[in-house]
């Protein structure tokens, strides 16, 4: 090489080719027989070392009351706070003056999964879920309507709590 490559001067005891090669090969051979860290995903979804975090913010879920109605009172806070503007809410009112959502749709493609809707909800109705397997065959299946949101059964996220940052 024409240009000055800096070559470290090392004592003989630190430089080796044969020994280092053999050492390296012994190491790689040992690794063949070690337990593997691969998690074979579709079959195993959590291992002793890893489970999905309870604070994971995935696709939404609408909680329901004892009669199976959505807890939502159509207060309009979630579409208000949503930074991605992905919640469509049309409020309605019955004869007793109870407000309920006529239309409640979340576009999961627009959603940024910030979890603000869950945080702002006064009725603890809308939640982000601990869930990540969402594939569908068409794009319009990603707009979840009220019925579908209520039908979800996955656990809901426990969001991050500033007073308990480590989740203890």
């Amino acid at each position, binding site marked *: *090489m024409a240009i*000055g*490559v*800096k*070559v470290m*001067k*090392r004592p*003989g005891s630190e*430089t*080796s*080719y*044969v*020994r280092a*090669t053999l050492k*390296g*090969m012994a*190491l*790689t*051979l040992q*690794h*063949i027989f*070690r*337990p*593997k*860290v*691969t998690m*074979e995903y579709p079959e195993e979804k959590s291992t002793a070392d890893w489970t999905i975090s309870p604070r994971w913010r995935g696709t939404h879920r609408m909680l329901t009351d004892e009669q199976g109605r959505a807890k939502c009172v159509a207060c309009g806070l979630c579409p208000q706070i949503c930074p991605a503007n992905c919640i469509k809410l049309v409020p309605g009112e019955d004869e007793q003056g109870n407000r309920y959502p006529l239309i409640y749709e979340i576009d999961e493609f627009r959603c940024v999964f910030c979890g603000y809707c869950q945080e702002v909800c006064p009725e603890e109705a809308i939640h982000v879920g601990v869930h990540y397997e969402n594939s569908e065959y068409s794009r319009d299946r990603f707009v979840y309507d009220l019925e579908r949101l209520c039908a979800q059964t996955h656990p809901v996220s426990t969001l991050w709590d500033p007073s308990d940052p480590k989740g203890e």
Partner: protein
Amino acid sequence: MTFFLISSIIKIIVVFTVIMVGVALLTLAERRICAWMQDRLGPNRVGPQGLFQPAADGLKNLLKEETLPAQADKVLFLLAPAMSFVPALLTFAVIPFATPLPTRWGDVDMVVANLPVGFLYILAFGSLGVYGIVLAGWSSNNKYSLLGGLRASAQMISYEIAMGMSTVAVLLLAGNVTLTDVIAKQSQSLFTWNVFPLSLAFFIFIVAAFAETNRLPFDLPEAEAELIAGYHTEYSAMKFSMFYIAEYANMVTASALMTTLFFGGWDIPFTQWDNTPPWTILKTVATLAAFTLKVGFFLFLYIWVRWTLPRFRYDQLMALGWKVMLPFALSYLTVIATAIWLLHDQLGWSYGTPFALALFGLNVLLAIPLFFVLDRGHLVSGSVAEEAG
């Protein structure tokens, strides 16, 4: 004559098929062993333990789009994959892989072509393989491909000489260039396997063989970190696949060659049962198994080394080839020729276990200072220690 033709055609078809399947499985073995070494599992989805992965890969490669660079030299570009692929397979034709198989019509040699000049044929075709790589690099009209091709040719020239020198020692012992005779000479006992009387020649040969097959730590023609993918940057689909098949076929051939030249070929150690007539089918199968096992070991060694060692720098590669391997191979050849002359012509020993053990002792004596010097790291360190400042 008819019998010869028919048996040859059958042998060609069988050997070709076995090598192709072997190469396919070798790609899988490489990926799985590499994964295990990295504490992963590797591809195990397609079929049991991923056994059909190569078939899936092959299918994918057949269906992919063929690209042809606009500025490429079309003829050479299309010719190059075949040119690297064919010599890799041709070399295997002269390697004996088992004892003769007795049939109703006569014994069938378990070698596709029992050439009297088998050994020279191997050296000739072994170096032909680089043409495919150089042509691929040149015809792609891409500077990285060209650099890869240049490196391949430089590397081939540097290591071919050392490889040839190391095998001359084998020829000195065997006294013949026919590979069946080379094996017959080695099959007297375990210690007449050439790896014992010629251990250092084997060391040179194995290093040169790694360089010849462009495997790590000598995979400079590809060097994905420096040259993208070297000579096959511009290739896609099945043509790209051909280079891969050629690389693995070269590995199989080099392993078979190491087995034949240094590890007694199909010889089963500790017994004379396998190399004396009358030939039986059982002997053929047993020796074939022994041969496969030995070749398999060397293939594993190839993979093992690849996933252990980093790549040489280009000048280190050249320095190792010309300043270490070549003079070492030459002086070793001189020493071993003198020793054989002394033992054979002056003392009148005929080749056998004591002869081999005497040479083995000489090799050990030579190996101690060699590995001591090699291990001090003065031989392949940076090339410009004085100028740097």
